[in-house]
């Protein structure tokens, strides 16, 4: 709590390129979502409600845009003058992208949202004073604010329903911001267990709730610095680099035949979620 301590931390304040000196060791949690496999079934979203104590806000509040789904399934269709979505819709699971240079982190006046060394964008509910600056500055708009005191709101968690609440996750009261945490309670539990055994978390040892429920396995999640992990292999195969704001493969002439991309990458927030483009058959 001294100024020296403050200055110490300050001296090491964010580098221009956040991951230049490869600080993510031994963990960097990241995700890859295959939109070709995603069928938009909402299983992940419900799993998230169950795991993370998300309140069901009800019809009226939903209408006012006060819904709390950390994971939302977006459904796109570009008309281009067609009558029917004859190549289907495009579904997109959208959650906090856990940006490496997260726009939300720098603006929080109290430091309630920070970067952790394992590459997560943390949100500390009890520190949050509810200025909502983070949400204002989030390009993906994946932060959700507790507009009401849901724990005491009628029919959010009526008697018995509250027994379902996950004790590992704080139930948020009014006035705090929240967002997808990559199921940090599961990550921390796995990390602590691994630490106790003097090793690092193995591939497959920890899953996020959405990943675990996804019927088509569209979501893969793991440690990006672990060469054994599926996520690492996917990112590598798709030639998507965490620390680039424009991928080299896209600058090649004739484009790329790979389908990995990150949303709004050009904003230089270095998201930790890679999406794989939905594929559509050209023969029909």
């Amino acid at each position, binding site marked *: 709590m001294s100024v020296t301590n403050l200055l110490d931390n300050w001296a090491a304040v964010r580098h221009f390129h956040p991951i230049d000196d490869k600080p993510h060791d031994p963990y960097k949690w990241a995700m890859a979502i295959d*939109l070709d*496999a995603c*069928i*938009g*079934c*909402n*299983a992940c979203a*419900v*799993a998230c*409600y*169950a*795991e993370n104590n998300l309140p*069901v806000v*009800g019809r009226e509040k*939903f209408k006012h845009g006060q*819904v709390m789904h950390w994971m939302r*399934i*977006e459904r796109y*269709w*570009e*008309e281009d003058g067609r*009558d*029917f*979505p004859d*190549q*289907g*819709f*495009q*579904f*997109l699971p959208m959650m906090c992208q856990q940006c490496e240079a997260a726009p939300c982190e720098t603006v929080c006046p109290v430091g309630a949202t920070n970067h952790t060394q394992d590459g997560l964008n943390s949100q500390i509910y009890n520190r949050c004073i509810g200025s909502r600056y983070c949400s204002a500055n989030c390009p993906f708009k994946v932060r959700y604010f507790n507009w009401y005191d849901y724990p005491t709101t009628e*029919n959010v968690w009526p008697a018995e329903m*509250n*027994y*379902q*609440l*996950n*004790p590992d*996750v704080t*139930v*948020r*009261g009014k006035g705090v911001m929240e967002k997808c945490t990559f199921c940090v309670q599961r990550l921390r539990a796995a990390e602590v267990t691994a630490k106790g055994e003097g090793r690092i978390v193995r591939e497959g040892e920890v899953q996020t*709730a959405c990943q*675990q*429920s996804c*019927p088509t396995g*569209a979501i893969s999640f793991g440690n990006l610095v672990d060469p054994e992990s599926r996520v690492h292999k*996917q990112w590598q195969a*798709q030639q998507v680099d965490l620390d680039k704001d424009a991928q080299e493969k896209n600058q090649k002439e004739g484009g790329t*035949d790979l389908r990995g*991309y990150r949303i*709004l990458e050009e904003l230089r927030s270095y998201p930790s979620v890679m*999406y794989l*483009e*939905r*594929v*559509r*058959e*050209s*023969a*029909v």
Partner: protein
Amino acid sequence: MIDSDSVKNLAGHPFDRRDFLKVLGWGGAAAALSGCGNTSIEDGKETVVSYVEAKDYVIPGVAVYFNSTCAQCDAGCSITGKIREGRVLKLEGNPESPINKGKLCGLGQAAVQHHYNPDRVREPLLRKGDKGEAISWEKAYALINEKLAGVKGEEIALLSGDVSGHQKVLLGNYMDSLGSKNHFVYEAVSPAVVRAANLKFYGVEMPRYRIDKAKVVLSFGADFLGTWVSPVHFAQQYAAFRKGVDGQRGVLIQAESKMTLTGANADRWLAVRPGTEGILALGIINALGVSTGDVAELVKDYDKARVSRDTGVEPSNIDKIAALLKLRSPSLVLAGGAAEGYVHGMQNAAAINLLNQVLGNVGKTIEAPVSVPFPQMAPSKGRTAALKDLNDGLAAGKYKVLFNVATNPVFTAPASYKFRDNMAKAGFKVAFAHYLDETALQADLVLPLDSEMEDWGTHVPEYLADTVQINIQQPLMERLHANTRGMGDILLALVKQRRAEEYKAFDDYYGYLRSAVLQNKAALGGAGSDDDTFWNDTLSNGIVKLSGASGALSLKVDVSGLKLPAPKEIDEQYPMNLIPAVTSNLRDGRHTNQPWIQESPDPLTTIVWDSWVEMHPKMALQLGIVEGDIVKVTSKTGSVSAQVYLFPGIYPDAVSIPIGRGHDAMGRYAKGYGVNPFEIMDAVFESATGELAMHETRVNITKTGQRVIVVKDEGPAGGRQMGRKIAARVSTDQVDLSKEV
């Protein structure tokens, strides 16, 4: 918030054999439950309730996991429940089950909200005028016994949903003991016509579909990713199918009048005129140009021009599909809800099955199912015709006593059945129910059931993925309400009233189940292990896998009866087709009172908490309707009013209203939200099977002049990405999938 007081309440329950799940306090783990508001440290104020006795594996703050079976739908997914301090917190899929391989859909996850639902019935209720009076179980049983006295067997009817396993056995024995054969198995939404067509064509009701082996899947309205048969299993097959056989990505073509979740994932989605699925199938056979004999004779009139005119599918698309099907083999053609919901549903399904046969898929992507070695446990599958029969019987005053096992026909019967009135004609109606739903409210005696997380049971799924499997259902936690009972326990008590001698060895359903399983230990693969070990292993696995005989399909190609009617002329008074949509969230509406389900946006429209009338933008433009207009949808039977949602994935002549909302009872999350399309459904039946033809209702649309804001997740930008690269799409010729991990 949960405080130590509520823990103490829980602690008040008496000990019983399930004490391994005993909630006796959380030894300080209660800390995690409260919000951010409390920053105070109140040493010495809070109580820590410790266990009196604790099993070794019970560690406060560390979860234990038990396997069981999901009962939200009848696909039979195995689940693993996460239990902390005696409370079930979350359900995951059980990785050992070949059906769902560790995955679970949203509906399955919401089962915990069924269990903890504040609107569950908690006491046996006896009708006193308009009110229910709480009575004891002893009294309830005695009352049933009393009412059954002197009633002949044929005057007793029992209505249930899909039933399998030991519960089916016990149910059968009970009906038997009453001398009644009137067990009606009813599901409001079931592929009964397809089953009948399959039986005729393949010799089995439900073959094994191998989407994962197919290179092309052509589906006629089968929503296998959302609601059809075993969606979680098919979704996994689908994932493999997209990854491809030999690196060639599977192609999905969906033909239907209203887009389903599966249609939304298709490479090519075809809007077909309602009811013309069979014509399209024959048109494709014609375009394939490979058939000879009877088949060639049958399809010779179905040239492209005619088919295109009849179905609304462009001729070029028919060509492309035929070319693709010819090029890539094996393929798989599926007939689903949209094809079967017509008077000629069976003909549609037959034409589609014929296409499969022409393509040579039978035996390749359509395999014979494994047969269940215990036929008495094999599932009885519900049919809508069963409800028709029951309703006719009730109307004729044939039944004096009616048992209803957790089905809700008052909600799901078309209004023209007048089921509510007919039900009143039965003298004594017993409802075994979780909620006071529309049907339970009509009953004279309501008996509260345990949730699937409190009850014992066995289930045999109809659609078996790999081997035969008997799914074990076991309590994941202590009974939440002291006065609910498992259906098995109730049946046992009831059957004891009749055949006390036979069942006297069993104290309860658990005992019955245990001994029934142990009796067949050898057949269940437990030869050699002692009873306790086998039983404990069975419980801990949650599944008993058996190798069942898998025969060949007995293919019968008989096209003689195959005759498809021309598309209906447009009716001036009722110009639109009503398509009652089965959505993956709501199904037949029995889960509507689970708030996660209500708030989980419909995948296609993103609407929550309400019903909507889906209408094509072109048609809406013609009628001068915009999104949010409240329109009145009128059929011959009646009318409902709901908000309009403009949706491009629907044939312009059709409108669609989702099934499942519009409850006027059931509970706080269901009651008063939306409308029920069954209220305007015409009672038209499939000609061959007598199933309700759900897609045959014709309606007209009138504006009421009111307008509301549609409550949905989608914003005003709709599905447009405004030039940003958000959900990107690429066609197969631009991407090299072989490089992928």
